[in-house]
């Protein structure tokens, strides 16, 4: 077992996990933060997407031990004081979710996209979500929500 100190959503958290634990395992089972989802465990679906140092990564293929000293942002970190942020509100407004399982991953990928490209074209939005699959919505609502967020200036 390894004792790790992880920076998650601005907090310094201590977690004890197996040395070979993935970041996904450390977040979900180690810290009880189940907002990040386990979809495929093979880096194909993106349900496990979190930000590591501001960059969207698939936490199912990142070793937890490698994340010490880096800022980790999860879906739980998007709300401010219990209030949904603009992106989250627009996801609801534009029907960007049904079952919601891909949603945390989509939100994190979208957050990373808008940080590096505040005014993406539709093609750039699609490219930014290249690592995220959705089986319910057909993606249109997700693209609309992200574009609406970009238009409103985040």
């Amino acid at each position, binding site marked *: 077992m390894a004792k790790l100190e992880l920076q998650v959503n601005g907090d310094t958290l201590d977690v004890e996990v197996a040395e070979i634990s993935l970041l996904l395992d450390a977040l979900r089972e180690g810290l009880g933060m189940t907002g990040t989802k386990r979809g495929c465990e093979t880096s194909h679906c993106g349900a496990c997407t979190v930000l590591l140092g501001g960059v969207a990564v698939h936490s199912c293929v990142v070793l937890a031990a490698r994340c010490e000293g880096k800022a980790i942002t999860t*879906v739980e970190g998007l709300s401010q004081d219990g209030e949904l942020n603009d992106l989250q509100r627009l996801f609801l407004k534009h029907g960007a979710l049904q079952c919601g399982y891909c949603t945390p991953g989509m939100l994190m990928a979208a957050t990373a996209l808008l940080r590096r490209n505040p005014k993406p074209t539709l093609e750039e939005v699609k490219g930014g979500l290249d690592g995220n699959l959705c089986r319910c919505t057909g993606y249109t609502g997700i693209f609309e929500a992200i574009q609406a967020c970009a238009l409103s200036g985040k």
Partner: protein
Amino acid sequence: MGNMEVKQPSYSSIGKSAPRIEGAKKVSGAALYTADHLLPGTVWGKVLRSPYAHARIKRLDTERAKAHPGVLAVLTAADIPAVLTGRRLRDMPMLARERARFIGEKIAVVAAADRNVAEEAGQLIDVDYEELTPVFDPLAAITEGAPELHERLAEYQGLPQIGKPLKKYLLP
């Protein structure tokens, strides 16, 4: 006739936007799905699966897996009743018995208190397969001489009642 103003009825739902009740929970990560309920004492399972579409299981030895620290149980077909499952036609054992009939068929299952231990133990199960000729096409499958996948097919529950012996349906 005079002016008749039609009074529009007011509805509580029709014509109104209906926000998703659970929407806020889903976008904030607070919504709990089945796998998000982590109860104390949760046991993790890992399944060993056949890499072959058709193979005889010549040897299946779980002793090394059972001895792995943290393993609670390792089960094979020998440990469970010989029940066949299926939706209508009951043709699939829960754990492969003597033969694997598709890539991914469950051969053995490991239970451990830790997911990594279950995964490691799965790799300690010793299996020897003898690859058999697979068949993937239904017309090929009913041609005389095709590999026989189910030796005891006539005993299976859920077969369609077709009134003729199965052999008569084989293509020459």
